[in-house]
């Protein structure tokens, strides 16, 4: 469905040219749920810009449904439904008018767009708000309406660019429930960008993108397994010394050792023929609490990028 080869986008800035996307290649299969996981400014939105022909690639090429995006921008756009990071509804029109506007722009006949819009509004739980002005909607409802709108022209590829950004946890869960419901009813390829690990976890494949490059790409399961079986989590008082000791003794831990929010240290268990228990006994430190768990996507992300995905509330743009 999507086929990108050595895609590059260079912006000229005052500090000289900067590659927002630096030679990425990926393929998304028909019906696949594919995620781009990366921090803000990693090149996610730039990639989407090139997918929908808003930005021209500096080098490389990208095809959607076997159509070159640069040569057939309108044909490609007709096949894509996109939910933008930031709201993009006309809030002075009613929900229905927004959908009508979209349907007309995509050349959908009156009868068909009416049928689809009614159906999708019902699936997304908005049927009773049809004729209300969009400015009376909550953030979560606006998002759901945008998803309905993105589907009115029956796209073959749905692009979700940080679809739950700026929503409270309850609305986030709610929006995802609706996305899954609609995916069950309408099969289509989904391309998601996010910096929330748990959102990427539900996808068929994940590409981890950092500083314009794909650093890892596989199913979430295999990415986690590639790290080895276990992550150790230790609570100690002499955190600094333990850190130093571990890094000297096991240099490979540089890529996974980190401090958790609760002040504990966690790292990929180095193994070397020992069990975690033997490993702990051999440590010359007093350990208050220790636990072993399976690696999660957070560990994967840190392993491949060297940084966490913690986002601050005010960095909602870019990506």
């Amino acid at each position, binding site marked *: 469905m999507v086929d990108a080869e050595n895609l590059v986008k260079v912006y000229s800035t005052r500090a000289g040219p900067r590659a927002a996307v630096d030679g990425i290649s990926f393929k998304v299969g028909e019906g696949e749920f594919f995620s781009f996981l990366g921090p803000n400014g990693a090149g996610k939105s730039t990639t989407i810009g090139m997918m*929908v*022909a808003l930005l021209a690639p500096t080098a490389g090429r990208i095809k959607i449904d076997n159509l070159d995006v640069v040569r057939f921008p309108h044909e490609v*756009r*007709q096949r*894509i439904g996109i939910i933008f990071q930031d709201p993009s509804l006309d809030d002075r029109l009613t929900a229905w*008018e927004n959908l009508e506007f*979209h349907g007309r722009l995509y050349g959908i006949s009156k009868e068909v767009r009416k049928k689809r819009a009614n159906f999708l509004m019902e699936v997304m739980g908005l049927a009773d708000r049809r004729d209300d002005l969009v400015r009376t909607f909550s953030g979560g409802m606006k998002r759901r309406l945008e998803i309905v709108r993105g589907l009115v022209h029956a796209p073959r590829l749905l692009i979700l660019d940080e679809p739950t950004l700026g929503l409270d946890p309850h609305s986030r869960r709610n929006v995802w429930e609706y996305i899954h419901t609609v995916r069950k009813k309408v099969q289509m*390829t989904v391309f998601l960008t996010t910096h929330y690990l748990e959102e990427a976890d539900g996808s068929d494949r994940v590409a981890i993108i950092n500083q314009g490059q794909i650093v890892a790409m596989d199913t979430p399961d295999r990415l986690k397994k590639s790290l080895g079986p276990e992550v150790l989590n230790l609570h100690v008082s002499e955190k600094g010394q333990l850190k130093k000791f571990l890094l000297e003794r096991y240099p490979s831990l540089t890529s996974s050792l980190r401090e958790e929010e609760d002040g504990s240290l966690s790292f990929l268990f180095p193994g070397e023929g020992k069990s975690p228990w033997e490993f702990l006994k051999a440590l010359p430190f007093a350990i208050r609490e220790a636990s072993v768990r399976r690696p999660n996507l957070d560990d994967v992300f840190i392993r491949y990028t060297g940084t966490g995905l913690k986002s601050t509330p005010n960095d909602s743009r870019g990506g």
Partner: protein
Amino acid sequence: MQEKTFEEWGMILPNEKRPLADRLTRDLQGVYTLWLRDVIRLWRDRIRLIGSIVQPLLFLFILGGGLSPRLGAMGVTHSGRPLGYQEFLFPGIVGMSVLFTASFAGVAIVWDREVGFLKEVLVAPLSRTAVVVGKILGGATNSVIQGTLILVLIPFFHLHPSLSRTMVAFLVMVMIGLTQTSVGILLGVRMTSSQGFMVLMNFIILPLFFLSGALFPLDRLPHWLSEASRVDPMTYGVDLLRHALTGVHFFSVWTDLLGMGIFLGLMSSLSIYLFTKAD
């Protein structure tokens, strides 16, 4: 909820390939859609539409009413009756009302960018030219409605143009509306703040208005003023409006039409060009 398959509801199967209508058909439908949106929004705001005729009324009745006893005849109508200042002013104020509304219609494109709606339009399968043309038509419609609200007051000013002359006046309003919306759009293309746009626009429309001859006759002007008014697109519009409604004019009909035509062509192609090039 009733379970129905998506096929029944008209969702198209994922691997069905739909041929696109030809480019022109799609673009024309896009132009219509964008125009329709502006008209819906205009209708929803109709209270404001009425409210915004207050300013032109102040000009007509207070400025015009106050000055007319002091000023002599402003020219002679073809019926031989001398033309008072209020009658002279009337076509100028019709033009002003179109000018102001159309110029600020360009702010809509800045608003759309601010609220993110512009992106929805830009990723749709239609050309940028169609987007600009749709916006220009929407803004022009708005401003012509404003102008018409003033124009219908014509019986109060003892002016009785024939139907064909009224049609000419209407055509002039359409041309001013199209030209000025284009100006608004070409200024708005790169603007990201609507406040900045408003400030810039105020800076532009007042000279356009004052130089156009809406308030005073263009003959016997100081040289520099007369030169400046010739490069004002509004001059030709106001002159033709006055010609049509009162019979008094400074340029010939053809000069007026040519002047308006040149500015319209220039401004609309420039706004299309800039919008197509913008990111």
